[in-house]
């Protein structure tokens, strides 16, 4: 049953991520669009361990994490459509989604969410809460100085932080190999005296287990952990990226769609059948359609309000 719920969630997210992409051409969703197809297992495996009062700082590719964390799909979609009912009333856009109720935020500047997670953890501890702050970044972002500074602070102050690196082998067109001199990025944890672990296989259950250890450790006062999760970027870096630089590797990776693979496994185990899959797909589709309908029915911000929200 637990697994079944995961599957449903994954599939929802998968569609939630896919769907907006097809609309870009219509111009209702302008701007860059970084979709996370293939990386859903990270979001689901992580967030199944998190509570509403736990925090996530997500990177430029945030939808899967937002949806798995419980960010309201309608408000998020409305933001992506630039509407006043959106999370940021149309000011933020898809790389700047803020949901205080879920302690969810993201940033278009890679790795810079990591220090923010450290500060959230400081606040939790100061207030006597046992909430956990999670910072997520790509493997490309993991070569940015901010990431190391954050790990060092979290470790020296023994804060409840989980650092997650989504290693999808690519940073736009730059392959991991030509940017990162270590095969297992989690060894970097030892540079800061914290435990680290790399999870191979893009497998939601293994990711869940690793995240569980890290989250429990943080929640229990054991300090920070670094997890590097090997995952897959099925699509382009942003919509419109032809990925000419990927060559054969792309076709290979497209065989590794984690949702299809997991579905097959669950079917083999007799936990899913055609009817169940159809139902899950339909439910997910309906939810996404409703979110988009909500967004489309929502008003655009008035140009007269341009100067609002600069100051509180």
């Amino acid at each position, binding site marked *: 049953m637990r697994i079944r719920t995961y599957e449903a969630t994954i599939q929802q997210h998968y569609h939630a991520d896919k769907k907006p992409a097809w609309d870009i051409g219509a111009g209702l969703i302008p701007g860059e669009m970084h979709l996370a197809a293939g990386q859903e297992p990270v979001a689901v495996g992580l967030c199944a361990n998190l509570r509403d009062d736990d925090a996530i700082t997500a990177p430029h590719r945030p939808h899967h994490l937002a949806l798995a964390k419980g960010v309201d799909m309608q408000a998020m979609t409305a933001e992506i459509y630039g509407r006043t009912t959106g*999370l940021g009333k149309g000011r*933020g856009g898809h790389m*700047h989604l803020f949901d*205080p109720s879920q*302690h969810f935020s993201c940033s278009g500047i890679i790795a810079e969410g990591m220090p923010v997670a450290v500060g959230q953890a400081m606040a*939790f501890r100061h207030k006597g809460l046992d909430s956990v*702050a999670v910072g997520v970044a790509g493997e490309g972002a993991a070569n940015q100085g901010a990431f190391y500074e954050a790990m060092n602070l979290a470790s020296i102050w023994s804060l409840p932080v989980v650092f997650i690196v989504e290693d999808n082998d690519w940073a736009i067109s730059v392959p991991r190999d030509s940017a990162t001199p270590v095969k297992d990025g989690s060894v970097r944890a030892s540079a800061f005296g914290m435990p680290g672990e790399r999870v191979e296989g893009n497998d939601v259950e293994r990711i869940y287990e690793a995240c569980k250890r890290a989250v429990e450790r943080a929640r229990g006062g054991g300090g920070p952990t670094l997890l590097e999760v090997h995952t897959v970027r099925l699509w382009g870096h942003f919509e419109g990226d032809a990925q000419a630089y990927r060559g054969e590797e792309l076709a290979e990776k497209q065989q590794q769609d984690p949702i299809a693979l997991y579905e097959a496994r669950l079917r083999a185990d007799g936990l899913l059948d055609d009817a169940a899959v159809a139902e899950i797909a339909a439910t997910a589709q309906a939810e996404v359609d409703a979110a988009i309908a909500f967004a489309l029915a929502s008003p655009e911000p008035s140009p007269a309000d341009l100067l609002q*929200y*600069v100051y509180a």
Partner: protein
Amino acid sequence: MTATVETATGQRRLTTAKAISEGIAQEMRVNPDVFVMGEDVGPYGGIFGSTGGLIDEFGPKRIIDTPISETGFIGAGIGAATEGMRPIVELMFVDFFGVAMDQIYNHMAKIHFESGGNVKVPMVLMTAVGGGYSDAAQHSQCLWATFAHMPGLKVVAPSNPHDAKGLMIAAIRDDNPVLFMFHKGVMGLPWMAKNPRSIGPVPEEAYEVPIGKAAVPHPGTDVTVVSVSMSVQHCLDVAESLEGKVSVEVLDLRTIAPLDREAILASVSKTGRLVIVDEDYRSFGLSGEVVATITDHDPRLLKVPVQRVAYPDVPVPYARGLEYAALPTRDKIEAAIMQAMKG
């Protein structure tokens, strides 16, 4: 200690450094969410004394010495602020902003807007500015225009102990990120030459000096001298020395962003002559914006060319003679006033 002096009339006089740390302490007493974080803010008390003595009262949980990781701990301040704390974070010298500017500008300043007003970042970033003691190109700048250029930040820079305490308290209470820039020269440090104006009367109780409001510490009718921070002390010295000869109106901006444009317009409307004294770099900065405030409205208010006594467009040189050739000194201010009166 040495920072507190009782005057004959019993009015307490403090250094600016002491006034700032007193303001912080008073807010920390009433609000458990306020804490201080930065390099050497603990036992050392801040390199320029802004956190002197706080560790003794509040301990290392609320007065936190950090590793030298400005992106890390300014970012942490932002995270703490978005979760309901009110951090005061010290960037030791403003000149180091470049190692953490992304947090300062893309995050601290913009999150409120990007969230459509749903997230607040009530945080004070305090930092030392200014030169005059041969600390050279990487430790002597003001740079307030750099921050004021970027929407989302409030930027304050007091010129005396009274305003420093009141602006600090206002900054802590403000729901926005406030950049609090204290000039080393106004701190009243025992180990640096100083103008007597860096020690002055400071009320005991907690009070606010409103952010966004300029002051007129020396009213006049002939010429308007707009300035901020340390340079205000020089302007006042000159204005006093010219009393009887030229009636100088000194405007102390106190806040750089948002700029008190009404105060500027009101004064220049009266005098028609404008001198701007600015220790930040001349071009693309404060002095241009003050001028544009007039010309947006009506350039004909200006009877004569505007005198800009600003830091020339050169990195801060080390040798004292060169540095003082660049700084807005009393003699340059006086010469500019006399020039404005000629036209």
